[in-house]
């Protein structure tokens, strides 16, 4: 059985892994299907009489200051937040794997140069890297936001994959492939990469939670997903000014973030213990 499927199966047997996986799947399903049946998240049915309504049968999460349905906005915001998170993490994992493979297998000056770069990039907190770009950039579309978040998240993964490659490169199956005359690229992508898949998946799963928090934070600062498009962080920013009049407008998007990030982290923790039982 391949190590990745084995790790996933063991994570599934872990109660944390199962709870996290199921909750994450439920949130993803709600974000994907919710907007199909819920009212329009941008609709403002009546401007004066349905502002800041408390939760009721018609509006289970209440309405916000612009009389929009909070549940519909939480679901639609979840679509954007989850899409940003998964795509950005996929980009980070790809960049990290590529850098780690090259640095670890090439070694020498390439390795030193890449790792110095990674050290320096890790010294600047990720939020500040993004603030630097977003402070100058004109209007940032969601696609660009995904690229930026993804491009600033691979440094740790690169170092992790490099470490795995350094360990693997001395193993006999790599030696055997080298002796058979396999090319560098073949060894890197056919022999080394599959064997780093499990730790890579752990890092990516734990990265999903980080990115959801990061994107919510940027949107809260007004630099992420731009209004009127709904996003969890942006909704909390809007709710800040009606904190006392309509606390539900801020509480529900925040709970959505907590549940999603917690699920991703629980699943990631279970997966990590399944891949490397020493930490348990």
């Amino acid at each position, binding site marked *: 059985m391949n190590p990745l499927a084995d790790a996933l199966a063991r994570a599934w047997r872990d109660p944390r892994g199962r709870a996290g996986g199921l909750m994450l799947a439920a949130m993803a399903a709600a974000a994907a299907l919710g907007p199909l049946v819920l009212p329009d998240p941008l609709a403002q049915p009546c401007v004066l009489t349905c502002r800041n309504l408390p939760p009721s049968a018609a509006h289970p999460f209440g309405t916000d200051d612009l009389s929009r349905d909070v549940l519909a906005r939480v679901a639609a915001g979840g679509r954007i937040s989850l899409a940003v998170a998964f795509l950005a993490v996929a980009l980070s994992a790809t960049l990290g794997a590529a850098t780690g493979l090259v640095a670890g297998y090439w070694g020498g000056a390439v390795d030193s140069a890449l790792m*110095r*770069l990674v*050290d*320096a*990039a890790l*010294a*600047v*907190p*990720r*939020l*500040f*890297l993004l*603030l*630097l*770009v*977003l*402070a*100058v*950039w*004109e209007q940032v579309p969601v696609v660009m936001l995904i690229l930026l978040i993804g491009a600033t998240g691979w440094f740790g993964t690169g170092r992790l994959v490099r470490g795995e490659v350094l360990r693997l490169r001395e193993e006999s199956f790599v030696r055997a492939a080298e002796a058979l005359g396999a090319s560098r690229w073949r060894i890197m992508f056919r022999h080394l990469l599959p064997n780093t898949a499990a730790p890579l998946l752990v890092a990516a799963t734990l990265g999903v*939670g980080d990115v959801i*928090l990061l994107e*919510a*934070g940027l949107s*809260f*600062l*007004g*630099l992420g997903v731009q209004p009127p498009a709904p996003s969890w*962080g942006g909704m*909390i920013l809007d*709710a*800040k000014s009606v*904190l*006392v009049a309509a*606390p539900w407008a*801020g*509480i529900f*998007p*925040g709970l959505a*973030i*907590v*549940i999603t*990030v*917690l699920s991703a*982290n*629980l699943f990631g*923790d279970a997966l990590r213990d399944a891949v490397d039982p020493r*930490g348990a």
Partner: protein
Amino acid sequence: MTAWLVRRVAQAAVTFAIAVVLMFALMRLAPGDPLSRVQESHPMSPAEMARLRRIYHLDQPIQRQFAEFVRGVLRADLGTSIEHGLPVTTLLAARLPPTLLLGGAAILLNFTLGLWLGVRQAVRRGSREDRTLTMLSLAGYATPSFWLGLVLAWLVGIELGWLPVAGMRSPLLAPDAPWSRRALDVTAHLVLPALTLSIVTLAGTMRYQRAALLDVLRLPYIGTARAKGLPERAVVWRHAWRNALFPVITLFGLWLPLLVTGSVFVEMVFAWPGLGSLAASAASSRDYPLVMGAALLAAALVVTASLLTDLAYALLDPRVRYS
């Protein structure tokens, strides 16, 4: 030890230098002129714009701009804030002490609570309490600091009215009030932001302390201590905990980036007059010299903290120095 120290300091300097280049490149990677965004909020005549471009060296070729930038960093001159019209270093220096106060209080709370709870968890490993504490701390880690801050401000500050929710000092308190009154006032303002910051970072400390203590409790000398008939409290705290405290030191270097990031949000929510709220408002108002200054300072803090952590480790564990 000296050779190790020299090597480690040189390494930190190189890391910071590369980070400076990286930040400059990243900022100039964005399309367009950094000042074009400023034009939107502050309309200017072409002549004024040209003057501003000259002041910020934006009329120069990119390599000259970079040279000017590096020269500035070396002279601790980070330019002039567009929004405030003051030197960036002056602004940063004025905002550093409140951030250090908030960060220090958050770390103190984080370590006090985290070490104590982590030890409790390790001693009662696998119990309901252990599992509950793990879940609670993970929930804290999954909570956005700005949301937790707003919820606490709403519940504790506004609904219950127990604590102030904005700023660092009460505007009603006379500046010449006795220092004890002023200290009490600042402390009251400090509680909620520091609590918010420490809750979202508590999980890591607890997890580290729990794992470290479990490792030590497995060692034979603990069995010896128990066999001598020492009370369990003495075994755990006097014999085991001292050795299990050691790996937790490394956390300080790990926590600093998180605290710097968290302070951006928490300071903004609680209107705390620190670096974080300065950086957040600078980014919103497209004040790029100020954002750059704040990012440089954040990087310098992180590099220094990691250096100090390694130094503390090397002083405590001689094996590190020779490896």
